[in-house]
């Protein structure tokens, strides 16, 4: 389209509270990120870290008890949070589409799948039923349903979980949306099916050139999918960067923990690492770094002050006091060290082509530039 570098979606300083009987849950705190045309951004975090709330906000589908305290969500410069219900309806499904976690429950059990796929076309493009059905059939073929002609009139329960997720993807992509939000699209599926669905998504992304926001708690899935990764913890983004930077040069102890708890081929110890403790109660988030209580590298400052973003590279920022120039040098866990060594090697060889990198430990302070995800 126009400028390839344009941010089609910009989320700035998003802060969302949920008013519940128990009190105000600070679900999202000062979250900022952007999305460029054709790229895949992965948002990674534990359940309850605010990933899904973020996507609901982008879709304008927040629950009634949610309050946007601050921030903007701009789609092509237009603030989604200020759109009328009519404008939102026009945007949903046409410009921004979403697929959900559980394909077993996200299809209407009493409607033929063909009709369900055709529905967005009829709403958004004003297609006749016939024309919409025809295109739905094409879409069904595209997502790899065999015998599409016969199966288009089947009901959801006649399909397996993997097939249903393909149908959900067909529904989401039938209008060729500019952004596809995939909220844990493979979590409910068998591992073998997971790979198929991921491949399908990548394939379709190229075919119809859509951008993807990929929500997951599974870093393993991210590696093959994403261009950039944002790690969320307790309603905040704690680190973001390119996929290589996050995987091979992680800076935040939480990211270390996540990577460490990921099974890899060379997990020899026979025991998976875990991050001790539980996420904080967002009804009453602790002062300072919310991760401090679980952070083996925690310092006094962590319990007093929330860390700002420190710049690691032009594309890589992390919110941890460890990156402060005055902070003592700490030894990350062995596995992480190993990753960083690989990263340094690849940097030398030039197989990593993203941004120049500051030596670890000596990082410049996070001044906002165009690329920055706020502070």
């Amino acid at each position, binding site marked *: 389209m126009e400028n390839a570098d344009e941010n089609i979606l910009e989320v700035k300083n998003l802060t969302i509270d949920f008013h519940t009987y128990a009190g105000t849950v600070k679900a999202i705190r000062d979250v900022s990120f952007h999305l460029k045309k054709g790229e895949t951004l992965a948002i990674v975090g534990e359940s309850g870290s605010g990933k899904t709330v973020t996507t609901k906000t982008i*879709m304008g*589908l927040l629950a009634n008890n949610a309050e946007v305290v601050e921030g903007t969500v701009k789609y092509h410069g237009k603030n989604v949070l200020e759109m009328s*219900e009519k404008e939102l*309806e*026009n*945007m*949903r*499904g*046409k410009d921004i*589409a*979403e697929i*959900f976690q*559980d394909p077993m*429950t*996200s*299809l*209407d*059990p*009493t*409607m033929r799948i063909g009709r369900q796929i055709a*529905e*967005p076309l009829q*709403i*958004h493009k004003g297609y006749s039923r016939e024309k919409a059905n025809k295109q739905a059939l094409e879409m069904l073929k595209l997502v790899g349903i065999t015998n599409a002609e016969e199966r288009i009139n089947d*009901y959801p*329960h*006649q399909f397996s979980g993997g097939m249903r997720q393909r149908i*959900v993807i067909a*529904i*989401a992509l039938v209008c060729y949306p500019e952004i596809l939000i995939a909220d844990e699209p493979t979590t409910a599926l068998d591992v073998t099916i997971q790979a198929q669905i991921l491949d399908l998504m990548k394939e379709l992304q190229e075919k119809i050139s859509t951008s993807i926001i990929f929500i997951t708690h599974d870093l393993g899935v991210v590696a093959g999918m994403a261009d950039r990764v944002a790690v969320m913890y307790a309603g905040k983004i704690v680190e973001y960067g390119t996929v290589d930077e996050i995987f091979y040069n992680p800076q935040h102890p939480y990211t270390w923990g996540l990577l460490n708890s990921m099974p890899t081929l060379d997990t020899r110890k026979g025991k998976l690492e875990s991050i001790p403790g539980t996420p904080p109660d967002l009804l009453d988030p602790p002062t300072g770094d919310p991760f401090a209580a679980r952070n083996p590298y925690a310092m006094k400052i962590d319990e007093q002050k929330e860390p700002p973003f420190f710049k690691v590279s032009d594309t890589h920022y992390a919110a941890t006091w460890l990156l402060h120039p005055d902070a003592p040098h700490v030894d990350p866990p062995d596995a992480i060290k190993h990753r960083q060594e690989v990263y340094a090697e690849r940097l030398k060889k030039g197989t990593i082509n993203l941004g120049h990198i500051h030596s670890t430990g000596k990082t410049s302070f996070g001044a906002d530039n165009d690329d920055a995800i706020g502070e």
Partner: protein
Amino acid sequence: MAKYLLKRIFYLFLTLFLIASITFFLMKLMPGTPLNNQAKLSPQQIKIIYEHYGLNKPVWQQYISYIVDAAHGNFGLSYQFSDQPVSYLISSRIGPSLQLGAQAIIVGVFFGIIVGSLSAIRKNTWIDGASTFISILGISIPSFVLAILLQYYLGLKLQWFPIADWGGFSYTVLPTLALAASPFAETSRFVRTEMVDVLGSDYIELAKAKGLSRTGIVWHHALRNSLIPLVTVIGPLAAAIMTGSMVVENIFSVPGIGEQFVKSILVNDYPTIMGVTMLYSALLCAILLLTDIVYGIIDPRIRISGNEG
């Protein structure tokens, strides 16, 4: 499907047979006889009367002939109206009862659906509060109280409708309203619960993500999914209407089965009681079977897999 249907029909007849047997032996246990109030009769007369009603034979013979007759729709002679066959009593009175029952179900379910869906769509608003309260009233106020109030205020005071008796359509209005209260309330509560459930489901979320408008979502997705299970409560609703009809028909002097039943109870007219019991049970069984079949037809999940039900 055919196999399932056959099995169900077999069970239906088995059930009816069991009910017939149980009611027969229950009636044998009863203290009353057709001669209850005629203790002054001579033994000769009593013998004649017993022969007339077939009460002189051994119990097992009576039982067999009762079952055989019942299978032919013959429930013997009424004690109450001498020599009138019970089957004639019933068939001459079934019309008004069926009409009232059908009208009450249609009216009750129709308005129940409207109020219940509105309530769910506007959950936690005053509309929801008001319709919930109306439904609670409908469930809580006994049909006989409602019938009396309707009769007095709409019939006697305002004279909008005839107070009692059976004639044209206008005579059916008040009894229908009195009978419809309970199905209305049950339906609206049921639909509300179902619809709230459906509106919170993932596929409604997906429908929103597709860009459907609120009305589009309700119309294309929510309504169908919440109304399909409604079929399963038609049976219980019919049973409730049978209960209600006994007093409502009485209050409005409708010449129906329910009114007949109450009269028979009060005078120990056992053949009629048994006949009406069998009729009610057969009706209810048929309705239950029918709703099961209908449910299987309209719910695609059951339609295809065809098993159980």
